[in-house]
């Protein structure tokens, strides 16, 4: 039996229906973005354009960094729940008794965290850009709208989310407690954000080549992480709790 997008779609649709009726998910998807848009706005609107170049860069960098913490944090909560949550509710075994392949299950779970994260992150970034264009000092807006900054945000949002999701699912396949899995996943989702932070703070000059190179590296890491998670996914251990 080959990889089936129908089966992926079945799990994905189930997840999205479940999110809509799950208060915890709704709160996570609505309050976290509000928090992460408020903080950079404060940064941007309180910048003194006459300040030193280093301080100016720090303000801009911090505000943009918030935009990339969002795609790291939001999916971590969902992906950490993805396997251990199903186990706790007793819904994992019925799913695994169907013809679904491990890869299909994992891709469905990853997409279920990825798609809403991408939507929320880009919408929030769009709102942020709109606010900057409308209300920020023209000097600040010019820096924010620099091509390399926009590229970093647009490219790294899905890549950071991808890392966070695979880290979350990996932890979720090995843990037996949802809360512990979520706490660990939040920590595990942060390393890629550190690289982006270096670029946003101009510690690493975000040239086009460097940005694309790092994005390519992170894409490769995301791909390897997927295969690593697939290798970790052990039906027998998940069903019986031992091997």
């Amino acid at each position, binding site marked *: *039996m080959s990889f089936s997008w129908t089966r992926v779609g*079945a799990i994905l649709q189930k997840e999205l229906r479940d999110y809509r009726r799950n208060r915890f998910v709704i709160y996570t998807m609505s309050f976290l973005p509000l928090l992460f848009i408020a903080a950079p706005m404060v940064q941007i609107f309180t910048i003194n354009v006459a300040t030193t170049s280093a301080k100016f860069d720090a303000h801009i960098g911090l505000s943009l960094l918030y935009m990339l913490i969002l795609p790291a944090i939001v999916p971590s909560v969902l992906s950490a729940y993805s396997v251990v949550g199903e186990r706790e509710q007793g819904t994992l075994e019925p799913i695994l*008794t169907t013809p*679904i392949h491990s890869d299909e299950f994992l891709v469905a779970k990853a997409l279920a965290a990825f798609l809403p994260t991408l939507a929320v992150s880009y919408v929030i970034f769009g709102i942020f850009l709109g606010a900057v264009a409308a209300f920020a000092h023209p000097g600040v807006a010019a820096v924010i709208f620099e091509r390399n900054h926009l590229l970093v945000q647009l490219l790294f949002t899905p890549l950071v989310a991808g890392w966070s999701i695979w880290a979350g699912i990996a932890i979720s396949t090995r843990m037996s407690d949802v809360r512990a899995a979520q706490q660990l996943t939040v920590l595990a989702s942060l390393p890629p954000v550190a690289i982006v932070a270096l670029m946003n703070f101009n510690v690493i000059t975000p040239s086009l080549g460097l940005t694309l190179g790092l994005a390519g590296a992170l894409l490769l890491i995301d791909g390897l992480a997927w295969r690593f998670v697939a290798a970790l996914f052990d*039906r027998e251990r998940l069903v019986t709790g031992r091997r």
Partner: protein
Amino acid sequence: MTSELDDSHRQPRSDAEPDAALVVEHLTKRFGERVAFEDVSFEVGYGEVFGFLGPNGAGKTTTVRTLGTLITPTSGSATIAGIPLSAESGPSIRGRISIMPESPGLFIRLSVAENLECFAGLYELRDVRDRVDRALRAVNLSDRANDICGSLSKGLRQRVALARALLSDPKILFLDEPTSGLDPVATRDVHDLLVTMRERGVTIFLTTHRLEEAEKLCHRVAILNTTLRLIGRPDELREQLFSRSLVVRTGSPLDAPGRVFNGLSNVEGWDLSPSGSYVLNVTDPDAAAPGIARALVSANADILSIAESHHSLEDVYLELVDEGVEAKKR
């Protein structure tokens, strides 16, 4: 729906038939040093309802999970719905069977129909709406299709799980303790559904420790206590395990029961039960009864009744499980 079973229209297929739904040979599963089940061999024919009995920890659920390709066996082989069990054949086998685990495992924030639609997708079924409607009709839940599963009673959830298991028209339906934790009314509903399925010729592998359930529903039963202890039709098992006997009740104790019963034709021995009745082991109850009656009349006994004793499947089960406990003690 009727709860009475009529076995006459079909018989379990013989072991020699090649088209058995399930062929299990010397299957063993160990978790490290712990043996879950060992050297288990049996066959289940298409259309047969096969009961898999055993005490807690006997290995019933692990056997189902192994046959359902969720667990890799340590040794032995199995052919499930015509496909040999192997690491590669898992998805193909799972496409032909259905397993209803002990816990219904429904998505509680989704409606009944949404739960079934998800599983229809996992089986890549066409005409999803039609399949869902049929499955719900089969378990009499058509009017609850839009109810959220979290709002359903335990019995109704079990019925939804059964509908889910029927969705793909499986060649073999594995039911793991389907009435566990249900009240008598919900249990009766599930039994009625299983009887209906049995009459439709669905092959069912039923694990249970409710013996009356197995006796009522199953063509054949196997008793597992880590190893397979016995397999056969419930009446065969009773005959295999217990000698036939007549129970004689008298108005007052006999003065010399040995003189009355010893030497009677077809009587192999006798014993006084704690209730005060005499239990006679006989080769043929019909042939022995007249001679026993004459002997009692000659001894001036006040005969209240002479009746053949009946052993239930529970007696068989307890006998075997007790044997297992004694063996472990030794």
